[in-house]
């Protein structure tokens, strides 16, 4: 943060009020790869990583989960649709994640197991708070969000009003302290509620004429007017996905549909935040079918539709799917699992895909932590850095 403010104040001294856009583009504060969008999907409640990416080669897994274990990929005692989907000789995906396998095979999907923070409380609030602030744990004093710090570090005159959009009821903590974040239920919230005369007056006042140099506010106004008319024409409800992609009609599905429509209209979207709830599976979690399976199905079909829809643009985005922690290795007495510490992170798009990153600590007795949880040997910050640094170099410098 201190470096950020120093940079910003330093740059300000150099910035006269009026500058042509070509001159402005030379004093961008930090290098930023243009044409890349980060999409973050946060699964709130703690998704069970051990059933997302099943360590089927380890007997300990089946012993710990007599009712919840996902059958091995080669388990002929169950129908194929209920078997896990083989990734390698050790791990297999939950059958609900089957639609994602092809992206893994194409190298557009990367996986990490045993990801977590250093938070020891196993409290949703603390663990989410840690991860959204990019902090080691929940009690760390840093109040701002990790994405906010990134956005602050990389501000420039080319930023658009739709640079960062969150599809949520309230602003996610990851964006606390970000410059002008937009929080929407739907992108159609980006509108001006006024009569046509007022809009016309704004167009007269703010439209840029190429011959004139304009102030920052003029430029922002011109961009906003453009975005307003594009979004109006976009008519999010009439958006036609490409490649035969079909988004689920869920809130999540519709959110991703809007992200895709924004991406394709080149409105300068750099970061999109989405979230999904209902992952806290203490009770009746289910195995190959059930609550957790349905949740995974919703994510997989949504992500599959999104990547299909984007087509070649898949290489211009990074999609991160993360959750605050995983579940206890051993199932509980109510056919669910309790809070653990480590889970799975999935990354799509412009990532080093087709492989499982990070280390695997194992789940045999003696390999678990003192409570009986998978050890979070892969720090979530390290993994985010690894996935994002090629397209977002400044990510390396925002952790606290």
């Amino acid at each position, binding site marked *: 943060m201190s470096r950020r403010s120093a940079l910003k104040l330093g740059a300000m001294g150099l910035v*006269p009020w009026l500058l042509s856009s070509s001159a402005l583009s030379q004093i961008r504060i930090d290098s930023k790869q243009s044409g890349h969008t980060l999409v973050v999907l946060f699964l709130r409640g703690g998704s069970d990583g051990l059933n997302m990416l099943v360590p089927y080669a380890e007997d300990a897994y089946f012993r710990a989960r007599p009712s919840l274990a996902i059958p091995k990929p080669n388990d002929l005692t169950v129908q194929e649709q209920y078997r896990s989907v083989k990734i390698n000789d050790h791990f297999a995906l939950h059958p609900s994640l089957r639609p994602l396998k092809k992206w893994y095979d194409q190298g557009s999907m990367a996986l990490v197991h045993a990801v977590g923070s250093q938070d020891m409380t196993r409290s949703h609030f603390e663990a989410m708070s840690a991860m959204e602030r990019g902090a080691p744990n929940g009690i760390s004093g840093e109040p701002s969000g990790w994405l906010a710090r990134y956005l602050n570090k990389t501000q420039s005159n080319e930023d658009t009003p739709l640079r960062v959009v969150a599809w949520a009821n309230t602003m996610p903590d990851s964006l606390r302290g970000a410059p002008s974040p937009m929080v929407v239920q739907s992108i159609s919230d980006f509108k*001006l509620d006024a009569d046509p005369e*007022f809009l016309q*007056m*704004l167009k007269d*006042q703010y439209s840029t004429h190429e011959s004139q140099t304009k102030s920052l506010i003029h430029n922002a106004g011109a961009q*906003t007017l453009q975005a307003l008319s594009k979004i109006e024409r976009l008519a999010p409800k009439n958006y036609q996905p490409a490649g035969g992609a079909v988004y689920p009609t869920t809130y999540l599905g519709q959110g991703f549909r809007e992200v895709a429509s924004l991406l394709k209209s080149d409105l300068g979207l750099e970061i999109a935040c989405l979230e999904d709830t209902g992952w806290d599976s203490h009770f009746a979690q289910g195995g190959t079918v059930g609550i957790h399976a349905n949740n995974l199905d919703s994510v997989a079909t949504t992500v599959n539709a999104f990547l299909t829809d984007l087509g070649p643009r898949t290489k211009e985005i990074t999609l991160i799917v993360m959750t605050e922690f995983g579940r206890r290795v051993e199932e509980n007495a109510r056919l669910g699992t309790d809070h653990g510490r480590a889970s799975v992170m999935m990354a799509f798009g412009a990532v080093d895909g087709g492989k499982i990153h990070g280390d695997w600590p194992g789940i045999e007795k003696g390999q678990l932590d003192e409570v009986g949880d998978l050890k979070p040997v892969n720090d979530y910050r390290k993994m985010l850095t690894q996935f994002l640094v090629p397209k977002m170099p400044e990510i390396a410098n925002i952790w606290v």
Partner: protein
Amino acid sequence: MSISRRDAILLGGAAALAASGCGRVATEVRRHKKTEPWREPSDPKTTRLLDRMTFGWSADEEATFSALGKTAYIERQLKADFEEPIDLTFQLSNLDCLRMQAVELMDIQRETVILELQCAAILRATYSPNQLKERMVDFWSNHFNIYSEKKDGAFFKSTEEEEIIRENALGSFHVMATKMSKSPAMLMYLDNEQNVKEHPNENYARELLELHTLGIYGGYTQKDIQEVARCLTGWKVEDRHILSQHQFPPVAQGTFRFDKDAHDDGAKFVLGHAIPAGGGVTDGERVLAIAVNHPSTAKHLAKKLVLFFTGSRSESLEARVAGAYASSQGNITEMVQPILLSDELMKGEPIVRRPFDFVCASLRRAAAITDGGPDIQRYLRKLGQPIYEWPMPDGYPVDQFSWANTVLPRWQFSYDLSFGKIAGTTIKAEAMPLISKIVGEGSGLTKERMRLLANHLSAPEFQYM
């Protein structure tokens, strides 16, 4: 100032009224006041000076300025001795957050307390005649930023704002910074309550040097931070309430507490000064004295103040302001005066109004009658600057990039304010722009004037000051 818990419960109705409307009676008083008719500013120089010294030019403000003349006006603003109008006092007196102590406020919902704090900030910035003081309160409140959503910040913020920031906004920086170091809101926000001998927490120590006093390149080392943190071990917030005939005043919950058992009483070495062992609470007090008297602190504050008022850096002006700090033992008035009289302020480029400045400037430009309540606060939130809700210790940014992308909510606010769509906020017809062309009569006439006002507030020029 404070009232008992029981009274607070009995006054529940008043609290609810305050939360919903911040004092309807006061709003009525204001409605019946004479309103200056809409007019254009008389000259750009006066407008520039007033835009920078106040929360925006207004016909009223210019009348005061003209009556006193520039020199006397600046002098009065620096003294902040204008009498507060009765309607403002009335409105503020309805707010529990200004009447009750932090511990009592905890009986009220956090959201309500934050709403009241923001209400007070909007009302004072818009209506107080001591405008320069209000600008300085905004400056210092950001300089010593706390986040009202973290821990019990919301409940402790008003004590800090009233007793430390407002008391010293144009007074002594030494006093303000020193009192701030024992402010429960700050000790909680920057985790110093967890700073104990066995596990030092450097958070407050770091920000004390980096943000509050010396500045980031102020010449301190990581070792200095660690030593400062050691000096501040045991500086906590009282969590007990003890009434005893042997002790007066009684131990009051929610006040500063020095916990000597948690204090590292060894010898320390801070910024070149040896602090001998056994100093107890005076260790931290010595740190504050060293920090506020450090030459880097003068430079750091000078840089920030010049930037705040003029929008850019100026080495020569910063040097004069830093000199004033040093020669006056941190007298803020002495630092601000040369900036107000500077060429840099009068001739520099315009500054983008931050959302809070923009909202208050709009209200002042149109002589609006507002309750400062939840509806107008919603706009501040959409504009990205709800007061006391910046999470980081550096306060809301002052640079242009951070606020340029808020034009859409600015337009919506201009339109809604002008067309009477904000609950709790109205504008009298006579305060709206005059129409030169003939557009009919009655409601058509008023609508046209509303439109002109909306155009004025949403124009690119009005986003600058």
